[in-house]
């Protein structure tokens, strides 16, 4: 503790230089934060996927529906606890750019299969009582300033027409990273409307089934049994774990992971050079002072640790600033309207990624300070004093 003041005054002896270096760190860590947010947005489904859930979809493509008759046959497979289903609606709200996930859902087992989406009992009851009822995620409701009782018009994409819904509930994610941007309405409303309007596509055929298993360890066996049931039928199935399904969904956008890692690596390598150079200059400027400290009795190890501490303090301050701004931006975007909602509906900076960011900042700070710190610790007092 007694050296903290000494560290602080040394750190800010060249205020502009230190602030600029902290700024470089902050910008790099902000970029890291934004990349982590984008990565999370793409992989959000993977992150929150239930280990005890399987997705059953049409083997040809997941937009091809499956017969309703599959429901009971899947439910009868040993090890299956519950089966629910949903259909992708693909509409837009008011304007074509206002796109978010809308799903026609089964009302019987949905809450059992997705316990992380929390809806109050009275709102769920209202959902069951009204054929045109809808429940929206807290995030999307906040974005469009919806409140319970509002009439929500949705322009059909896959299912053409102007669809009207009554908002009767708002669901919340049990965890911060749960998706709160979905819009649910009743599958029965979609199905009945399709029948009444004489359309065939999608009638009595949900888009996919979601299976909750008793024991996740039995998933492989259950997957084989389900797909075996419908082999050689007109609608063969492809069953996957929830996580694998989410991963395949995310990969449709390309290998985001590789792009993010490549960009991040270049940024951090540049940051390493910039900070290393700054620390080297800072140590060179203070050669005489370091020689005096050694003459007084400060050890080589002290100077090594001291220079490293300076470098890591810069990294920590810059890291905190950059990561803090990234967290704030994500929160502000979700609170006051996500401008990227169409592509990245959920902007969230997971705490574990914030910790990784701090770890990277400290590692870069340590690496950047290592060479100058070694120079300081190996300083020859007599030679240094002769140069004064």
């Amino acid at each position, binding site marked *: 503790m007694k050296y903290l*003041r*000494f560290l602080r005054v040394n750190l800010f002896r060249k205020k502009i230089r230190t602030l600029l270096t902290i700024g470089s760190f902050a910008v790099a860590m902000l970029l890291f934060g934004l990349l982590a947010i984008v990565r999370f947005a793409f992989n959000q489904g993977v992150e929150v996927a239930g280990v005890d859930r399987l997705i059953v979809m049409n083997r040809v493509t997941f937009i091809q529906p499956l017969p309703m008759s599959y429901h009971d046959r899947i439910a009868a497979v040993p090890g299956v606890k519950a089966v629910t289903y949903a259909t992708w609606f693909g509409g837009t709200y008011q304007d074509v750019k206002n796109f978010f996930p809308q799903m026609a859902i089964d009302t019987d087992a949905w809450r059992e299969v997705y316990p992380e989406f929390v809806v109050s009992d009275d709102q769920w009851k209202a959902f069951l009582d009204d054929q045109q009822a809808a429940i929206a995620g807290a995030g999307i409701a906040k974005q469009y300033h919806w409140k319970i009782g509002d009439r929500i018009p949705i322009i059909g994409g896959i299912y053409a027409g102007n669809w009207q819904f009554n908002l009767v509930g708002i669901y919340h994610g049990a965890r911060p990273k749960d998706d709160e941007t979905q819009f649910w309405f009743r599958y029965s409303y979609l199905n009945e409307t399709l029948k009444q309007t004489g359309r065939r596509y999608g009638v009595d055929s949900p888009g996919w089934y979601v299976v909750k298993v008793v024991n996740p360890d039995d998933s492989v066996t259950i997957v084989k049994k389900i797909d075996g049931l419908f082999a050689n039928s007109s609608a063969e199935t492809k069953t996957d774990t929830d996580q694998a399904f989410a991963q395949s969904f995310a990969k449709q956008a390309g290998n985001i992971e590789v792009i993010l890692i490549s960009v991040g690596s270049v940024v951090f390598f540049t940051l390493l050079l910039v900070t290393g150079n700054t620390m080297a200059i800072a140590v060179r400027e203070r050669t005489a*002072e370091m020689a*005096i400290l*050694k*003459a007084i*009795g400060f050890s080589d190890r002290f100077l090594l640790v001291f220079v490293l501490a300076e470098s890591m303090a810069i990294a920590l301050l810059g890291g905190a600033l950059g990561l803090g701004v990234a967290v704030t931006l994500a929160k502000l975007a979700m609170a006051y309207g996500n401008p990227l909602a169409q592509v990245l509906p959920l902007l969230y900076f997971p705490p574990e990624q914030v910790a990784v960011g701090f770890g990277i900042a400290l590692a870069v700070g340590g690496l950047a300070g290592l060479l100058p710190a070694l120079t300081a610790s190996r300083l020859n007092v*007599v030679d240094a004093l002769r140069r*004064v």
Partner: protein
Amino acid sequence: MVRVDGWGNNDSLIRIRGLDKTYRRGGEEIHVLQGLNLDVGKGEFVAFMGPSGSGKTTLLNLLGGLDTPTRGSISVAGDEITSMGSRNLTHWRARHVGFIFQMYNLLPVLTAFQNVELPLLLTKLSKSDRREHVDAALAIVGLADRSEHYPGQLSGGQEQRVAIARAVVADPTFLLCDEPTGDLDRKSADEILDLLTRLCREHGKTILMVTHDQLAADRAGAVLHLNKGALAEAQSAGGAA
């Protein structure tokens, strides 16, 4: 008691025997110190004089454990410093040596108080004890009222007085002064010499000072001339001791 003939008794605080220091510059060997002997008793004020390049600063560096001799031994208060490793030597310096340099060498980002406090950070003293020691040291050098000033806000003489306070604050065994008045005007130089004399007389500090200034040397109890790598007693001045 100051002797350069190698016949000093075992009571010497500082005892140097057969000290050689050789530098290699290019292919040439430069013998800076050759077979140097010295005995200095506790509470002595010794001045070293000699032409530039005669090895005065080298001798001071060796005495302060900043450099290692090519041959010979140096013992201070019974500690044989020439056989110490780098880490032990660092600890020894912190405990036994107070350095005063020509250019003061204060840390510009620290106040006078903080500069003086530096050697105490290496001790286990509490914050309040450190404050007490620093206040006392600044009072001795007459700068109690300037403790919150930065070096840039002080005159050269005041900076050197802060450097002296830093040198004495941990109560070292002896002080090594390398041209302590070399960068000061006569008046400030006299003030610094008065202070050093007082430290020797009133506080019993052993002081070894390198100087080119005869007036400064006259303040010392003994003046030794360094020439061609060897010491010779010049005179017994009517100085401090």
